[in-house]
């Protein structure tokens, strides 16, 4: 756990980077600091490992006041990942990853075998070990940066816009892998970003900061979207937040209707469906898309070419956003629902999902009144 206790950073020229910040980053969770540039989020992060010293207040690491620890010893207990990875260009990948173990005095063999293990863990082939950073792509360098931060298995990870400098596809991939990794490792993470979507995707809790280094709101992502504390937060979390907030509303059971499906590669026997669309599944009953009956003669084989892949899938037990999106993206208006293994359960309509959403709204307004 990391606790900011009335922490401020004021500079001699009178500017205040961080203003009496009180914040707890719970153990094993991802706390995201988000805000526009100049809001003090990076300063706050760097005060945790004392790259910047606070002018007022204390920062606690569990029961220890970080101000009483030697900075270099404190830093060796905290993994640190930055935007452009900041790898050492003169060292091979394996030696980059082994940096902190070397500093902690591990013997070379142990440090290297640990580094190799981490390369695999972040999804890099082991033969990259002997390469130099300049030989890797931006996304690969960033993975090495994460591996390097994890090398000595620190309880705490500090991450400063780690995924901002890579293209959107790679970024999404890195975010997914980061969440998967965190599921396994359960580190106490403080993560800085200027991207509210990233904050909402990754954070267990999100701290929105505003210019002048003030904490505007600290909340779980869903709450941030549904109940922004003030106009600044509302503006910052941005458009479509009603829709995005549905992503944090799970439904135990969508009311599905049975849907006739034809298997890919089998003979098409026509459809009963009045709109002329027929769902196509593979041999595992995983939905592939829709085919239009008018486009192929009864008796002919159903092939990949016949499949319209427009629709997204909603998982039973998943969130309302995915359910609604499945309906809206389906050419038939019927959203396809699958079980946890990805096999077809049935379909649901937008009207039914909206009814669930309205029922949920009644409930929550009920609780407010109650």
């Amino acid at each position: 756990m990391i606790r900011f206790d009335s922490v401020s950073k004021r500079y001699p020229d009178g500017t205040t980077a961080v203003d009496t910040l009180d914040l707890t980053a719970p153990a094993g969770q991802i706390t995201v600091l988000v805000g526009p540039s100049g809001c003090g989020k990076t300063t706050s992060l760097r005060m945790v490992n004392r790259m910047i010293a606070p002018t007022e207040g204390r920062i606690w690491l569990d029961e220890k006041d970080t101000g009483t620890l030697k900075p270099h010893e404190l830093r060796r207990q905290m993994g640190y990942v930055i935007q452009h990875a900041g790898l050492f260009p003169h060292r091979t990948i394996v030696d980059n990853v082994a940096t902190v173990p070397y500093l902690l005095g591990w013997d070379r063999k142990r440090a290297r075998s640990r580094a190799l293990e981490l390369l695999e863990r972040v999804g890099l082939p082991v033969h990259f070990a002997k390469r130099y950073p300049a030989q890797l792509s931006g996304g690969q360098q960033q993975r090495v940066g994460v591996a390097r931060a994890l090398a000595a298995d620190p309880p705490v990870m500090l991450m400063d816009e780690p995924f901002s400098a890579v293209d959107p596809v790679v970024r999404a991939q890195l975010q997914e892998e980061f969440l998967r990794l965190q599921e396994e490792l359960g580190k106490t993470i403080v993560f800085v970003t200027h991207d509210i979507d990233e904050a909402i995707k990754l954070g267990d809790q999100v701290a929105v900061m505003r210019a002048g280094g003030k904490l505007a709101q600290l909340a779980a992502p869903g709450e941030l979207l549904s109940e922004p504390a003030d106009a600044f937060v509302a503006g910052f979390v941005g458009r479509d937040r009603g829709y995005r907030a549905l992503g944090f509303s799970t439904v135990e059971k969508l009311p599905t209707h049975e849907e006739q499906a034809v298997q890919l590669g089998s003979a098409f026997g026509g459809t009963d469906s009045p709109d002329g669309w027929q769902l196509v599944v593979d041999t595992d009953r995983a939905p592939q898309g829709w085919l239009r009956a008018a486009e192929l003669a009864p008796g002919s084989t159903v092939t990949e070419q016949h499949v319209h892949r427009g629709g997204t899938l909603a998982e039973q037990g998943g969130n309302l956003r995915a359910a609604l999106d499945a309906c809206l993206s389906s050419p038939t208006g019927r959203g396809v629902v699958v079980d946890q293994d990805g096999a077809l359960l049935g379909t649901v309509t937008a009207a039914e999902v909206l009814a669930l959403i309205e029922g949920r709204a009644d409930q929550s307004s009920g609780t407010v009144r109650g």
Partner: protein
Amino acid sequence: MISYFQQHQSQILSWLGWHARLSALPLLFGLILALPLGWLARRYRWAYPPLVGIAGLLYTIPSLALFIVLPGILKTKILDPTNVVVALTIYTVALLVRVVADGLAAVPEDVLQAATAMGYRGFGRLVRVELPIAVPVIGAGLRVAAVSNVSLVSVSALIGVPELGQLFTNGFQLAYQTPILLGIVLSVLLALAFDTAIQLFTRALTPWRRAVRPA
């Protein structure tokens, strides 16, 4: 020229040996002095203008004047090779302070930040991260200083120091071109040898610069 060399072989080889030593030692001492000075100039912004400025000024002192003045300051004999070594060390420092400062300044900010965040302390960071990354820049500066030293050493022949410059003074006194030409050829070869050696050494220290991205 070749027959002249053969006739005076042992004498000329001895001068060549002296010339090499008188060029190389100041290079070594100069680098050792320039590293902390360059670090200071990089570390404290206020220190950069005076350090680099004074270093630049030192280089404008005429070498002959320095060879003559130094014995008085160092209490050495006029023919003592120490004078040449000290004088050329001053020139080497003059050239390298700026090179070291700029080489350290060229280390990317995110690399420095990462090094500090990993838990490197000041000196460890300098030796393990900053200097290795500055090697190509410092190596390039060393090559300039080495060639400059080889050429400056010959001036000390005027005060009688035994090195290749003796070929020039002899040639001049005898109005005989052959030793002068030989002196030029040997100086150039010596400078080339230094240059190549430093280049190879720099390359050996920086395998990472030759790493190419696999297609």
